[in-house]
Each structure stands twice: as C-alpha cells, then as structure tokens.
C-alpha cells in the first residue's frame, strides 16, 4: 500500500507497531519482565517513528490524507497528516518516547505486587488513541479515537484499584470526560448537519466542514460546545476538578502522559475546530478563550501552591499551563478576527510552543515525581527532604524541569512565555479602545501566574529535595534511609543511595535535554513551526523572528524586542567559570559546621519550613479564593497551663469550585435518580403498564 516512505506512511506504521505491541503483550502475560522490556521497547520505537514523521511533515509543510473503509458501511475513516496534526504528533510522540524508555525501569517496580499486563495493554491503547485523535480527519473517527483515549486512560487511572481514592478519581474522570464528549459530539453534529443542510451524512468529514460556510449563530453554538467539551478534557477551570484527582493516582508514567500530552489533544481540538473547521467569526470567541485561560493560569498555580502532595501539585500546575496555552490561542483568535495575521501567527506560535514545552517539562517533572515515589513510596512533600543527597541525578533533572516550568531563561518555558508577553505588548495596535485597556490587565495576570509558579516550584523542589528529611516516621524510617545513620545531623555529602535505575534516568535526561534545546534554539524551532501558522492564520513570523540568524529571536521587528538564549547561557557560564577559577587560585579551606541555631541548641528537622509554611504568606493574601480550614490545638501537660506539650496544626485547603458547581449538580442528580428510582417496582406488570402507556401516548401524538 505504501510504496515509498512518506511522513504519513511512517506515522501509519507507528500505529500498526503499537497495535502489534498490544498483541505481543497479551501473549507474554506469563513472563512479566520480558513483557515490560519487549512492549515498552516497541512502544518507544513506534513513538520515535511517529515524532520523526511529525517533524518531517511539519518541516516540509506536507499534507497527505487517506481513507480506510472500515467501521460502519458508507462512513469510512479518514486520516490526514497536515502541519497541525504533524506538530501534535511530535508533541505526543516525543514525550511518549521518553516516557516509554522511562517505563522500562518504572513499571518493573510493580513486579511482585500485581500483574502489569493490562497496564501495558492500556498504555499502548492510550497512545494509539492519542495518535488517532490527531490523525483523524472526520468527526466519526475523531470521536471513536477520543473515546478510545478516554476509556484506556480510565483503566490506567484505575490500575491500583484497591484504593478508594483511585476508584473515586477514575469515576469522576469518566463522568467529566463524557460530559465533555457529549458537547464535542453535539458540536460536530451541528457542523456536519449544516455542511450538507441536514441532508445526508457526507458532512461528517473535516474536509467538507472546511469547505462549508456556517451561519453566525450556528457557528457560535458549535464553537462554544466544542470549546466547553475540549475545556473539560483540558482541565480548564472550572472544569478541572477531575484532573487533580485522576492524575496523581495513576502510575507516574501514565500521569506524565496524561498531564504532558493527553491534555494537549484537547488543545489540538480547540485549534482544529476554531481555526481550521469553523473559522473565527467573532472577536469575543478569542476573549472567552483568553478569559478562561487567565482564570486557569492564576487559579491553577494558586491551587498548586496549596498542595503538599507532589503529584497533585504537578497536576494543578498543568491546569495553569493549559491556561497559558489558551492565553496564546485566545490572543491569536482576537488578532485573526481583526485581520492582523502576523500578530495572530506570533500569539498562536507562542501558545503552541508552550504546548510543546509543557509536554516536555511536565513529563519530566512527573517522571521525577515518579522516581521519588518509586524510591521513597511517599507522595507527600511534607514527609520528604534532603533527597538531593540520595538521588543526585533525579534531583538535578527535576531541577531542570522546575526551572523550565518557572519560565526562567535560558530554558524552554521562558521562550514561550516571552513570546506570549510580546503578543500582549503588541495588542495596543488593535484599534478597539476597550480591548486596549483590558488586554494589558491580562498580561499582568500572566505575570502573576508566572511569578507564582516560580514560587510554587521553589517550594516543590526545596521541600522535596533540599534541607533535611522531614518525615514523621523517624523510627523506623520509611525506607532504608542512609539519612538516619548516625543521627539526623550527620549527613555529609551524598551517596546516591536511593537513585533510580538507568532506564528511568535516561528517560528523564532526554526530556531535560529537550527542555534545554527548545530553550536555547527557539529560532530554529519557530522556523520549523512556520508551516503551522501559515496553515492556520496565513502568515509566519520567521522572516522577522529569524532575521538575524539562529542566534537572535526577534519577533515582529528587531527594534521591538530581541532575546538570545545561547548568549545568555554562554555569558553566564563564562562568568561563573571565571569567578570560580579566580576564587580557587588561592586554596581556602572549606569547613563543614553545624547550622546556626540562634543559641537554641535544639534545632530539629521538624523545624524546617514545610510546604504548608512556605505557602502561608500566599495563602493569607489570596485566602479568599480558597475554602481554608485551619485548626491549631495545643496539648498541655496536666498542671502546666503555660507550656504546651505539643501543638497540633491541621490545615485543609479545598477547591471552592467543588462546592460551587459540582456538589449541587451531584446532589441534584442523586435526587433525581431517587425519584426516578421509585418507578422501579420490580413487578413485571408495572413495567408492562409503563410500556403500554408510552405506546398509547406516542400513538396519540403521531396520529
């Protein structure tokens, strides 16, 4: 069928390879170790192929489509690889490749506890689903792959199903995913129906939708339905409640994929539907996307700061980053409507660049959190500390992820946020006074989110890896802790006692390298992404961005703003090296000494700042956004009312949205089910009467 190798052929072959991995997994059930090695190697290979196909396809600005006659008669599946899907193929493929390599080590941790066969099978199905979502070119195959993705990830969240929280999270996830899917289905229904004027089914292909003109009202309805459907999947606030429940409880390699790339399929959906299928016909579509993006960015990071479970923190931070991506896309929509293709290209590329970046660093961070979990069997940061000595590799790699996600130069997170800021700074060229005044406030919110996320990741890294072991479980330690040998104060140097194996390290190293490369070579990446913006908004920014070669990133114009990550990196490293050499010419001794304890003499590990205390100032300032329950109880020894024996501090921070939106809906649906339940009498005569009445009523109406 495929005569010579094309990007599309490569992508197609990678999907077949994934399906092969599933079949092999089913046969290797008995040999778990072999199963892990074989299946994850094949998966890694196929993901690598898919990302190569994507890189190639986007770079060549290549479009190819094919029709597969399977499924329902007369409704064949259409697949298509264009720059947009190629780009998302890279996002999904690249991270899945890293994570698959990582899984070679990580999943071995389950051996001896439970069978991993179905983990492997659903893992492969999950990736297949994501690839197919991106490649499908009609509403039917899109929705089928969407469901494949949702269902397989449901089973992955359920993997450790003996725990109540996992079952609860998985159920919540399934509910929200399906409410979202219904909205998407309705949206496609509107589009498909209007394409053919509600005659026949030919309108279900994306090609037909692209050609069609939609009346304004219907277009808006379709856009809003699609946006809310995809927003539910992307975890946009207020549809995010499932995300911090489901992502942390899944196995860490799966959480990396869910947070890193599954959310991105929703971004893909939003971009595909709004830019490609419907076309932007109102400026306020962009405003809606922008506002939801801003809310998600700020609230997401604030909620992340309140967490003490490392994986939950990362999940909330995904909400924030989805918000940042949506900010770029929303701005692009506004600029597109006002016919400023160059600015639209800038903001769209900023959003999509952040999509790629977030996949890399969030994948890296979840892999790092997984490594910590693997080594310590502990998820709460309050019980960690000092791991940098025990896991030097993981710590350094996690640090790379933290720097990237905190938008610090010269890593990748900074580039995309910088581009987004540039897009904001160019908004005054819109000739709409009200937007001119309001959009800068959005820039301020984005700055707030970026700065708070730096605070958040100082906390995450500092509490997990730095300082000393904070755990309550001093004796016995939760693991064979070298920290406990010779007391808690005598930790000198690091011995890497808890470091994870090389597969996991290589997976993380590759992701970290990707963060660095995307950070210091943004000009090349943007040059590569040009086909994208040309396809979607009809302009590109490379001519301006790359005007001064690969060294300088200069969007719009070189006088306007410029950034050169390589120079930043080189100069800083040079100065650091120079200072280091100059200061080490003369040998000054380095002593190790106990900490300064203010003369108090009894400094213990429990006196360190914990996550709760680190975030306390921010909790106080932004407290009105959360529902916080704080409880301090002092336990006094008998006969001494002055010096409490110990203090108990209990803090519970909850998402306000749960009580605001979800609880009423949940209560209402339970109430309705109770009422409806009364119809069930259990007697067959009653059921027959129901049917009889229904038939009579219907006959009356259809007379």
């Amino acid at each position, binding site marked *: 069928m495929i005569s010579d190798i094309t990007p599309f052929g490569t992508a197609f072959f990678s999907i077949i390879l994934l399906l092969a991995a599933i079949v092999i997994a089913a046969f290797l059930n008995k040999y778990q170790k072999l199963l892990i090695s074989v299946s994850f190697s094949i998966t890694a290979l196929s993901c690598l192929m898919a990302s190569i196909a994507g890189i190639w396809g986007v770079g060549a600005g290549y479009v190819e489509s094919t029709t597969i006659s399977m499924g329902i008669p007369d409704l064949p599946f259409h697949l298509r690889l264009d720059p947009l899907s190629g780009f998302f193929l890279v996002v999904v493929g690249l991270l899945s490749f890293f994570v698959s390599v990582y899984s070679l080590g990580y999943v071995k941790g389950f051996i001896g506890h439970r069978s991993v066969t179905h983990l492997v099978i659903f893992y492969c199905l999950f990736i297949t689903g994501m690839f197919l979502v991106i490649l499908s070119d009609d509403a039917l195959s899109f929705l089928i792959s969407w469901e494949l993705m949702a269902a397989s990830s449901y089973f992955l969240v359920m993997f450790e199903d003996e725990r109540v929280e996992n079952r609860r999270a998985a159920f919540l996830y399934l509910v929200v995913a399906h409410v979202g899917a219904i909205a998407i289905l309705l949206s496609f229904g509107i589009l498909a129906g209007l394409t053919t004027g509600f005659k026949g089914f030919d309108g279900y292909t994306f090609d037909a939708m692209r050609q069609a003109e939609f009346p304004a009202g219907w277009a808006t309805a379709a856009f809003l339905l699609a946006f809310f459907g995809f927003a539910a999947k992307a975890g946009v606030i207020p549809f995010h409640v499932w995300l911090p429940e489901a992502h942390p409880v899944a196995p860490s390699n799966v959480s990396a994929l869910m947070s890193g790339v599954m959310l991105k399929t929703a971004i893909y959906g939003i971009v595909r539907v709004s830019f490609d299928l419907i076309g932007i016909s109102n400026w306020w579509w962009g405003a809606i996307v922008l506002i939801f993006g801003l809310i998600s960015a700020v609230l997401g990071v604030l909620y992340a700061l309140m967490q003490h479970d490392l994986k939950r923190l990362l999940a909330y931070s995904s909400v924030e980053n989805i918000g940042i991506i949506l900010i770029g896309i929303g701005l692009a929509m506004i600029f597109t409507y006002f016919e400023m293709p160059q600015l639209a290209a800038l903001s769209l590329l900023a959003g999509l660049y952040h999509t790629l970046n977030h996949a890399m660093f969030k994948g890296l961070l979840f892999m790092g959190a997984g490594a910590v979990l693997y080594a310590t069997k502990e998820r709460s940061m309050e019980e960690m*500390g000092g791991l*940098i*000595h025990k896991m030097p590799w993981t710590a350094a790699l996690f640090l790379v992820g933290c720097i990237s996600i*905190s*938008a*610090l*130069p010269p890593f990748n997170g*900074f580039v995309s946020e*910088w581009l987004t*800021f540039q897009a904001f*700074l160019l908004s005054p060229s819109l000739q709409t*006074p009200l937007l*001119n005044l309001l959009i*800068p406030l959005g820039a*301020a919110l984005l*700055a*707030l989110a*970026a*700065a708070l996320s*730096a605070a958040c990741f*100082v*906390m995450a*890294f*500092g*509490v997990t890896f*730095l*300082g000393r072991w904070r755990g309550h479980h001093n004796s016995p330690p939760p693991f064979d802790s070298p920290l406990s040998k010779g007391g808690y104060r005598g*930790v*000198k140097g*690091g011995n890497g006692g808890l470091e994870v194996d090389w597969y996991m390290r290589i997976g993380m190293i590759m992701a970290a390298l990707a963060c660095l490369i995307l950070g210091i070579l943004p000009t090349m990446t943007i040059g590569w992404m040009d086909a994208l913006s040309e396809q979607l908004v009809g302009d590109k920014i490379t001519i301006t961005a790359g005007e*001064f070669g690969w060294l300088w990133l200069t969007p719009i114009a070189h006088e*306007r*703003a*410029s*950034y*050169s990550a390589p120079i*930043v990196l080189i*100069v800083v490293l040079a*100065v*650091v090296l120079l*200072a280091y050499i100059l*200061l080490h010419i003369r040998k*000054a001794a*380095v*002593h*190790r*000494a*106990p*900490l*300064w*304890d*203010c003369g108090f003499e009894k400094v213990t*590990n429990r006196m*360190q*700042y914990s996550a709760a*205390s*680190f975030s306390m*100032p921010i909790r*106080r*300032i932004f407290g009105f956004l959360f529902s916080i329950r704080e409880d301090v109880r002092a336990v006094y020894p008998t006969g001494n009312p002055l010096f409490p024996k110990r203090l108990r501090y209990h803090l519970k921070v909850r998402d306000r949205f749960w009580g605001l939106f979800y609880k009423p809906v949940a209560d209402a649906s339970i109430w309705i089910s109770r009422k409806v339940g009364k119809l069930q009498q259990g007697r067959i005569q009653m059921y027959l009467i129901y049917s009889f009445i229904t038939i009579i009523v219907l006959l009356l109406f259809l007379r």
Partner: protein
Amino acid sequence: MNQIYPVIIEILQIAILLIAAPVFIGWIRMLKCWSQGRTSAGILQPYRDIAKLFTKDVVLAENASWIFRFTPYLVFGVTVLVGAIVPILSVDLPLSATADVIVLIGLFAIARFFTALAGMDIGTAFGGMGSSREMMIASLAEPAMLMAIFTVSLVSRSTSLSQIVHVITSKGFILRPSIAFAVLAFILIAIAETGRIPVDNPATHLELTMIHEAMILEYSGRHLALMEWAGMMKVFLFAGLGIAVFFPWGIAPKDNLIYLPAAILFLAIKLCLAGTGLVLIETGLAKMRIFRIPEFLGSAFLFATLGMLSYFILE
C-alpha cells in the same frame, strides 16, 4: 576601528559596574549615617568588607548541597550579564540585543530562584522563611513590573532598552502622565526587588525581620562575598535601569566615543541623586509589617496600571 569601539565600551561598562557598585552602596550608607547623626565608615567600606570576606575560609552548613555552593557563582554571573545589557553608559553595547526588559526580569528571577533554593537547602527555619517571603514579594512585584514595562513600551513601541533610550532621548522632553506614573511604580518595585526599607531591611540582624538576609544567613567567606557583591550590583543596576528608561538624557548615543566622559559624569550625578532619594525614603519610613507589603506592591501595581490607562485616556 568602529567594530572595536562597542567592545571597549562593553568592557568599560562591566568594569564600572563591578567597581562602582560598592561605591554606590558606600555612598548610600554614608548618607544614611549622616542623616541619622552617626559617624560613617567611609565610602569605601564595602570594598573592605568584600576584600575581607574573600580572604576568609568557607564554612558550610553540614548538609548544604551543590546548589548552595553553586548559587553565589550563578547569582554573580547573572548579575554581571544584566550589567552588560542595561545601557548605563552608552546604547552602543554589543550584548544589549541579548535581552529586552522582560528577559532582564527573567534573569533577575533566575538569580532569585536559586537564592531561594539555597535558603531552603541548609534546612533551617530561617532559610525557608526568607525564601518563602522573598518569593511572595517577587510574585506580587512581577505584575506591577510588567505593567510598568507595558506603559513604557506604549510610549517607545519597544521593550529593548537601547531602543527605549533612543526613542525617549530623540523625542525631547514631553510631560507624560503615563511615564510619571510608571516612574512612581518603578521606584516602589525597585525598593521591593532590591530589599530596601520599607520592604526589607538590609542592615538588620534580627532574624525574624529578615528576608534577603535570612536566605543568605549561612553563607560565609568567598560565597558571601559574591552574594554581597551581586546584591550591591543589583541595587546599582536597578538605579541604572530606572535612569536608562526614565531619565536617559546623557547616555552616549551610538558610534561616538566623545560623549563617553560626559556620560560617565552624568551617570555619577544621577546615581548620587538616586542614592540620596533612596536614603530619604529609607530614613523617612519604617519597615512595614510583612502583610502590609501586598498593599505596598498593590499601590505599585495601581500606579503602573494608572500609567497604562492614562496613556490611552489622556495622551
């Protein structure tokens, strides 16, 4: 020859930064002593402090990791890079296109990020407290800073510093309410970012009131010297940044070495004035409670936003 001039200026500027920053701090401390009726230690005391620290041995906390040891070098390196970008003497800097104002904020942010991590690294309550508060202040200062930049970029249509200097000097002096508001906002932000009174007290030795000092409490020897020096340069650079963006008259234009001596003179005068202003603020105000700082930075945000609004409304 013309190729070599910018490089000379660049090197000269970095040298001036390294040398003049301690003098600038010495000037501020001296004025402060005078204004409070104390005898000052002289304008060169910061040099002596740094020189002394460089000769001392390093005492490390027992579980300090490589992050704690690497941070001083990184902070120093980043600060020097910022110094190579901000047009203090001349706009003719080869490195100035490396970063616009937003990247500069990012560079300061990475220094702060690592300083905060170093504070967490040693595992005391003070270090963590300093880090936590520093990050809180930084996250509130950032939106205000961005708004101020927004206002400036509205006027100059650029965020690149050389271009801002060029546009503002070439247009002549215009009374602009937006820029006036932006200056006010910038002063408040600079006070918060450099940790001066009323936000933080650089001279305090009471642990509970420290922010920046709490993070670097465990540093000693050459590490402390680098941190202190970088801190001085940061104050100097914020002054230089404010001068370049808001009062750029006197900064040497492109391709002309003749203006350089005049530029140095202007810089000295402006810095003296900036130092005097800072001393007036520091002497006139008392350190705030930590939870008044949101209001302080909120006013900075308000000023910056009013600047942005008044650009659209009044200009």
